[in-house]
């Protein structure tokens, strides 16, 4: 029996590692934003590099998992769903990476009265990503909690939307130049995209969980 599951366990560990990366990217994203807003640029760059490395390794893991699922014709009835979930989860990681990269390149100057809002926005995105990862783990393990996690992802996405709207209103109501307003507003949108991406995956997850029931 142990031999029967040996290969499967290896694949399971790869999926777990990929989800660990996703979770870690979410946490690093939040810490990197805080570092940036606090002016700790060295720390920020170090975390950004870490996220980039995790994204690259995550891509390799995901491709390996996808290849194995296809090559060994595993889980034929849920393969499409699983591949869709993994690929869209990659979107969450990519969003985090790209947002940090643009921060690093464009270096927007964020007024101190807005930093709290940016941190909250990044925090909700991070929470949504964490709940998403737990939901995906529950999906793979057949746990009945998938819908709870999906619900929580949706909750944090809505909270993030509220913060994003408030931030943009504050930005555009300020005396800043329009170009700067546009620049700051763009970053609000980019940071908010993290929770949007998480919600998109969680929507797929909800459907897949229904399909997974026997």
């Amino acid at each position: 029996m142990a031999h029967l599951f040996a290969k499967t366990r290896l694949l399971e560990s790869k999926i777990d590692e990929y989800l660990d990366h996703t979770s870690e990217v979410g946490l690093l994203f939040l810490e990197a934003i805080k570092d940036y807003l606090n002016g700790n640029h060295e720390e920020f760059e170090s975390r950004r590099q870490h996220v980039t490395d995790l994204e690259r390794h995550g891509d390799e893991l995901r491709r390996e998992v996808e290849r194995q699922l296809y090559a060994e014709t595993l889980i034929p009835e849920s393969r499409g769903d699983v591949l869709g979930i993994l690929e869209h989860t990659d979107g969450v990681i990519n969003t985090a990476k790209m947002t940090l990269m643009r921060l690093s390149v464009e270096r927007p100057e964020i007024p101190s009265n807005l930093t709290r809002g940016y941190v909250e926005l990044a925090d909700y995105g991070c929470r949504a990503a964490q709940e998403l990862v737990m939901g995906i783990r529950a999906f793979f393990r057949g746990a009945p909690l998938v819908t709870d996690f999906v619900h929580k992802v949706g909750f944090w996405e809505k909270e993030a939307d509220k913060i994003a709207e408030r931030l943009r209103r504050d930005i555009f109501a300020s005396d800043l130049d329009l170009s700067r307003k546009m620049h700051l507003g763009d970053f609000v949108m980019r940071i908010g995209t993290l929770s949007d991406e998480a919600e998109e995956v969680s929507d797929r997850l909800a459907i897949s969980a229904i399909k997974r029931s026997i």
Partner: protein
Amino acid sequence: MILFYLTSAVFLGWSLGANHAANEFGTAVATRMVKFRTAATICAVFVVLGAVLSGAGTSATLGTLGAVNALGGSFMVALAAGLSVFWMTKVGLPVSVSQAVVGGIIGWNLFTGSQTDVSSLIAIVSTWIVCPVLAGGIAALLFAGTRRYLAGHEVHILERDVTVRAGFLVMGAFGAYALGANNVANVVGMFVPAVPAGSTRLFGLVPFSSAQGLFLVGGVAIALGVATYSRRVMMTVGKELFKLSPVTGLIVVAAQAAVLFLFASEPLRDWLVTHNLPPIPLVPVSSSQAVIGAVVGIALAKGGRNIRYGVLARITGAWAATPLIAGAVSFFGLFFLQNVFTLTVSRPIPYEITRPAFERVVSQGVPADKLEALAGARFRNAREFKAALRDTPGLAPADVRLTLAAAELRRYEIDPAKIVRLDLELLTPRQIEAIRSLAWTSYDHTWQLRDALVRESSQWAFLPETRRNYIHNRDLETRLRYLEAAFRVNGAEASPE
């Protein structure tokens, strides 16, 4: 000539494989858990193993077709059954091969004027209802249990996948083995008496009889059917009637196996009886009908939506059509074989109320005065004799039945040379002693031989029909039939004065 006759058996085997493989691997292939090529390979290998290793029981080797008493008739019955099953396979519908064979035999009975065992007809019709209902019930219970188990236990999607896949392979292999073991006798069983006895050693090690060689041919024919033409029926079972998930697909296979084991397993029943437990009633079951019942059972347990009733109607229609088509093809085919190709399709079994038969039925309460007019007259077959009995006023249906049974002419000669060739392992020493003491005697009726055996040894007597005696009586009947087949003199039924 035997080789020519064997072609229809090979065709029947091929049709059987093409149709019945779906019962073992249909859900696995349709849910894409097992590749068709893998399924066909495993199924083919285990069918051949089952056919060669377990198909050749000494007494039961004649199979259902053993009722047909000329090879020409067996050829046509097998061809008719094979054709009807082939047609159903072509349109992707799972049907029962043994029911097609019984249909073909009924066609032969009608053509030759032989009696048709009404119980076999009732068995077929009841199987259409009882078997799917039992399988559906078991499948629904298994489904509910599995769902509850999975709700309480976290099983990784990949581990579940591996487990279900392994389950499909193991159960499919067992099912294929049983398919070969249980059905090969229906395919080539009637040729066993026609091949020269003898055995050789395979690779100088394993003893291999000529009968096993014949079963190998049958097994290979079934395996070829599996490999070349079984995909369509598999898709009907696993996908078209109701879209199954892999887990429910495995439940279907398990429910089918459970029905066959619980309701058709004589060893299980024997075990229960010998341990003073109430036996599970043996009902006629068919794996094809069990599988469909199980699929519908699961579909209903899931709320009854998404069942394609049109497909279900086509399948149940095919169940009824298969024996009918086989019967009709057999009847008309026999006509051609006999009248166009002048082949012998049956050995006539005449009827005559001989003196001993007359005394027997009168002692059983049939009014002597009513029978006297018929006594001594020879009738060509059961149909003519039955008609004459019915035309005789004052005979009750029970009288007709008793007289039919007593007046059937079958010649038996207890040839000492044949006694030597009997399979001694099947009989007790006292039973063999009884046969030896009857050497050089002859009989014109089956019941005379049976009575003579009882006179020589009480071990040849049936016991009162109680639950405990069931196994004894069933085994005795098997031995008696074996003995009768061994000492019957074909073509010499018309000997009495």
